[in-house]
């Protein structure tokens, strides 16, 4: 009796743990956003498809162009340059040469961004600048 109780308990625990692990795995794979520098992003464009990612680089001076819905600009990491079409307002700090992280996805060779991340605190740098 005790043995079957124990066994039942273990089966129950294993099923619960398995379910949680499966949910975690599925949730993580669907919602991971890679940080990619402009050149990494270009290299991985085919793999990423329409998956959300975070594109890091500096705003190319002179590339900013206000549009009806947001702003178009280009970001570069010194090796590759990506054209970005951003929908929504740009943050106050957004300026030529500013380091930015854009959250969005590829549409052919245009990067559609719906969020420009500017971290608070003047000592923050996007990942690739830190190296």
């Amino acid at each position: 009796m005790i043995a079957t109780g124990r066994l039942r308990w273990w089966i129950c625990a294993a099923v619960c743990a398995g379910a949680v692990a499966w949910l975690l795995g599925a949730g993580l794979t669907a919602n991971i956003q890679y940080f990619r520098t402009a050149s990494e992003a270009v290299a991985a464009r085919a793999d990423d498809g329409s998956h959300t990612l975070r594109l890091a680089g500096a705003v190319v001076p002179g590339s900013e162009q206000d549009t009806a819905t947001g702003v178009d600009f280009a970001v570069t990491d010194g090796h590759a340059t990506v054209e970005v079409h951003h929908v929504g307002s740009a943050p106050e700090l957004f300026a030529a040469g500013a380091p930015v992280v854009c959250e969005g996805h590829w549409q052919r060779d245009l990067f559609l961004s719906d969020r420009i991340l500017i971290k608070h605190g003047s000592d923050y740098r996007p990942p690739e600048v830190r190296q």
Partner: protein
Amino acid sequence: MKPELGHLALAVGFAAAATGAALAALGAARRDLRAARVGRLFVALVVVAAVGAVAVMEWALLGHDFSLAYVAQNGSRATPTLFTVASLWAALQGSILLWALILAVHLGVAAHRWRGLTGDPAIGWATAVGLAVAAFFFALMLGPADPFRAVQGAVPADGAGPNPLLQNHPMMAFHPPMLYLGYVGFTVPFALAMGALISGRVDEQWLRLTRQTTLLAWGLLTVGIVLGAWWSYEVLGWGGYWAWDPVENAALIPWFTATAFLHSVRIQERRGRLRVWNLSLLLATYCLTIVGTFLTRSGVVASVHAFSRSAVGPVLLGFLAVLAVSALALLAWRGDRLRTPGRIDSPLSREAAFLVNNLVMTALATVVVTGTVFPLLAEALWNRQLAVGAPYFDRLAAPLGLTLLLLMAVAPLLPYRAMEPRQLRERLLGPAVAAAGTAAAVTAAGVRGVERVVALGLAAAVAWSVVSSVAPQVRARARAHGERRLVALGRLVAGNRRRYGGFVVHLGVAIIAVALAASYGAGTHRELVLAQGRSATVQGYTVTYLGTEARSTPQKLTLSAQLRVTHDGQPVGVLTPSLAVFPGATEAVGSPSVRAGLRQDLYLTLVSSPDETGQVTVGVFVNPLVSWLWLGGLVMALGTAWAAWPARRRVRRPGVPARDAPVLDTPAAGETVSVGSGS
């Protein structure tokens, strides 16, 4: 002189904590009452040392003594006094100092309350563990996180001031200490759990002390989390209150495990079961607070709250490893001795509901820990930089949260041990009708989204189940004692604080659930580009741009836009969202202007200052029911305070009745008589 004084206080604190820990341990191990008593006295010295160190730091901050590196980096002559005082927790070293102070106060209060229990080995070991933890934090400040380091080279004439975000809203003076009070407060139940494991003893007294200290820390943490959400809403200007930021998560994770403990401890009290599991929850809660501290204090995660990279990270990680290994070793060593035989009688019982609650709470903690730590693992293991998006947390937390609401609606109606399914069906009819009716009504009113509708329905069921658990008892008491119903309700609630305090907390959670269902990721957001004198309308709100006003103080330069607002033709007032530039900071900090209401908030931000043509960009958010969040938080705090307030003195002088003694002539009085009778 101040660096020397500060270091002296820290050294005294460390020495007192280490000596006290050793004596308390000796006293508990050898049953040496004198050693235990002397060890306990060292707690007072630790408190004095911590207060002294903080006093020296505040003296330096308020006196603008820039010879201290910390003051030079976080203070400035232009900063208003409130924020100068609050600069104590504006950066890493000072925040550890605040941590040490709060820990010392918690230990002091605990030692005072345990003064009659010096002979109890579990209490003796708990004192030793608490003091050992304090010694670690003092050592941390004598080593890598030294708040009293002297500035290198010439003493600057003025300092940089705290981070602009930390001196932009008075809430900054309240939200971090409140969070720390709760967070650090879990040290005491942790110490009690370690004491129980080392001494191998768990008795009624221990259980009561552990439950009370956990409830206190839990309540303070709850208030801290709600205040944090409020700060995020009122200060950051993004229109929301919760972003699954790593630091928000760090506060939430131990909250889940502590909530689980507060429920499952009832099974231990009533049925003597789940002892080892409850001890594990306490140990896990404390380890998770250290994980959270590691995340926020080591600079490993990029976050609103993160301090810069420092040597504290590895030390904290080492401390965590010691905690986790010793906790697991003790559990393995003592587990069998403390384990109790027996199992849950029936799936239709209060015990079973508490068990499911524990499973869901643990699952929530697991989900949030995984999502928060995964980017760190990915970087450490595969050298990949990635982020886990908010949808991960939303998608996994929502069904678990709804399950908890369902449990809150059902569990109060379940008795301990077992019940007939037929009886259960009768009892569940009311809540089920309330849920279905509410769901239908809100759907008709235009609420869309399965999760939102279900959450609103379940919140109604929770409220119904609370009312239907209380109402029959009020009626019965009113009949039996010939009292008015309101009087009967008051006496019932006063007579069993834990039961009714718990119900009030559940009502608060239901209110928060309503707020989340209505506002999380919902609401309207528009951006308006307005020339002076022009207006635009969003959701019935007409916003007219009157002009901007610049104001300069030594602290900051503020540019505020004046926006006249009418709602469906009725004047609302002039709102003034602003942007502020602080000297020494490159970026502008926005301050939203919020007109809060019970039904909805109007939330305006100034996105950009006037351009060449004089147009400003204004962000307009219309957020439904956000005020209910703060209201729900308040209700939870009141319920917790009601349940946690010491009902009677343990040691009472004969002949002197306690002021707030429970009414003893009622069937509902006393904790053991009626708690959870469910009828």
